[in-house]
């Protein structure tokens, strides 16, 4: 067994008493105090997440945009500076290799943020796909730390954090899926570059802060110290998972995989089908069929949650399942069980009653629009 990697913030997590888990080959904090307390803190105030395990690829050169148009499903060349965009890495058959966030710093420098577990697959795809483009691709994962502040108090917390200087845009003017350039100065040290994206994975307002790994501990400390009076708590992967599920956001390996094409996961809009050519284009045309299972939300009453892998039936006495849950939990915010599942289109209309086999008991579930939770803006 290979040793798990740790982030630049590992000693901070240990000092905070975190429990750890293996996530994509990294030893990551799963919780510090309580999953539920951390979840509720993000919904009502704010949570601080170490997501440095995410992989960052710097894509630089005159054909950076053209390369990404070919390598990814979206039209990345149409981005504006300081914009962020959600996209997908597809394989030739249209299956999903990973879902990514792309930030454009300028036309010749973009950053692709991939999932930790898919770092090698994305690196391999990029190496193959870049051969006929004038572009340099640098896997900067080991040098870049990523800290997320998520929750309604996020902006106030960043504004209260000393050391965040030289912001290219006032935080109050920064729109969702936009980024600012900034610098962060640890006490007694020279400022270092930092990118501040108004992005996140919790359904709340929030920021994702990219900084060189060696400066991350000082940034973490500064954010926690400034944020604690405003309700900020460190939050782990357990809270992150229930938050993203409530927000209807897919998790690779659960809702997304190489066996799923974007339209099935409700991500058809992410694919720029009218692009000249991109990896996956020909496969998508062949694979998408009218009866392919589609991703739906399921809501239940009571407290027993259907979980990933549980079978979904269209009747209490049906012998063959129509689908399977990809993620499920008792929603901390809503108080009832929620799940995402792939089911046939005929069973996917909101309001349809389906049945989840919860360890031998079939529990009724209502097909529901995603997301389950939407913040008040």
């Amino acid at each position: 067994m290979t040793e798990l990697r740790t982030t630049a913030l590992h000693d901070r997590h240990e000092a905070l008493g975190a429990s750890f888990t293996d996530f994509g080959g990294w030893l990551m904090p799963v919780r510090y105090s309580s999953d539920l307390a951390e979840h509720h803190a993000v919904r009502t105030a704010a949570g601080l997440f170490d997501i440095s395990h995410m992989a960052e690829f710097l894509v630089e050169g005159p054909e950076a945009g053209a390369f990404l148009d070919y390598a990814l499903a979206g039209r990345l060349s149409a981005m504006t500076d300081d914009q962020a965009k959600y996209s997908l890495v597809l394989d030739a058959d249209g299956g999903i290799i990973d879902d990514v966030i792309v930030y454009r710093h300028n036309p010749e420098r973009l950053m692709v943020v991939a999932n930790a577990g898919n770092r090698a697959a994305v690196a391999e795809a990029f190496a193959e796909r870049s051969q006929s483009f004038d572009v340099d691709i640098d896997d900067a994962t080991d040098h870049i730390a990523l800290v997320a502040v998520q929750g309604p108090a996020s902006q106030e917390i960043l504004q209260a954090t000393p050391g965040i200087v030289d912001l290219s845009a006032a935080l109050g003017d920064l729109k969702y899926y936009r980024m600012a350039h900034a610098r962060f100065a640890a006490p007694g040290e020279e400022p270092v570059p930092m990118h501040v994206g108004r992005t996140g994975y919790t359904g709340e307002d929030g920021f994702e802060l990219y900084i060189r790994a060696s400066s991350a501990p000082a940034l973490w400390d500064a954010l926690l110290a400034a944020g604690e009076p405003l309700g900020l708590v460190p939050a782990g992967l357990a809270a992150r998972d229930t938050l993203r599920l409530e927000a209807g956001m897919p998790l690779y390996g659960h809702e997304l995989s190489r066996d799923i094409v974007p339209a099935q996961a409700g991500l058809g809009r992410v694919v720029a089908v009218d692009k000249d050519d991109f990896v996956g284009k020909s496969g998508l045309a062949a694979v998408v069929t009218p009866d392919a299972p589609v991703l739906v939300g399921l809501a239940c009453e009571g407290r027993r949650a259907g979980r990933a892998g549980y079978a979904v039936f269209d009747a209490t006495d049906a012998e063959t399942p129509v689908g399977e849950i990809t993620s499920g939990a008792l929603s901390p915010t809503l108080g009832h069980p929620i799940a995402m599942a792939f089911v046939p289109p005929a069973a996917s209309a909101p309001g349809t009653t389906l049945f989840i086999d919860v360890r031998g008991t079939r529990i009724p579930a209502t097909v529901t629009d995603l997301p389950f939770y939407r913040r008040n803006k």
Partner: protein
Amino acid sequence: MTDLTALKYTAEHEWIALDGDVATVGITAYAADKLGDVVFVELPAVGSTVTAATVVGEIESTKSVGELYAPLTGEVLEINEAVVDDPSLVNADPFGAGWLVKLTVDPAAVADLLDRDAYISLTGGAE
């Protein structure tokens, strides 16, 4: 406060406090911590007979589902309704207010369970 040194344990992370022929059963702090926040418990029916080492209930956390095993064979005398109403008691006070069931058992069978030192060595130091 429960006297932890007087408790018996199972490898399934249950603790047992014996009073006469009544065994009070809960899960250990180690198990509660591993599960995370407990959000649902299902306990056996009062009056039912349970068999040692069989699954008699479920303890669900936000992240996972744990099974509750009967540590001993016996009849269910009482279940902790407070925990059914507020499962977070399992995390807050696993050895006290978070107890789960009381069983009428053969006291002699308790001697075969783990003592505290044996349990702590099983978990590598936690209880």
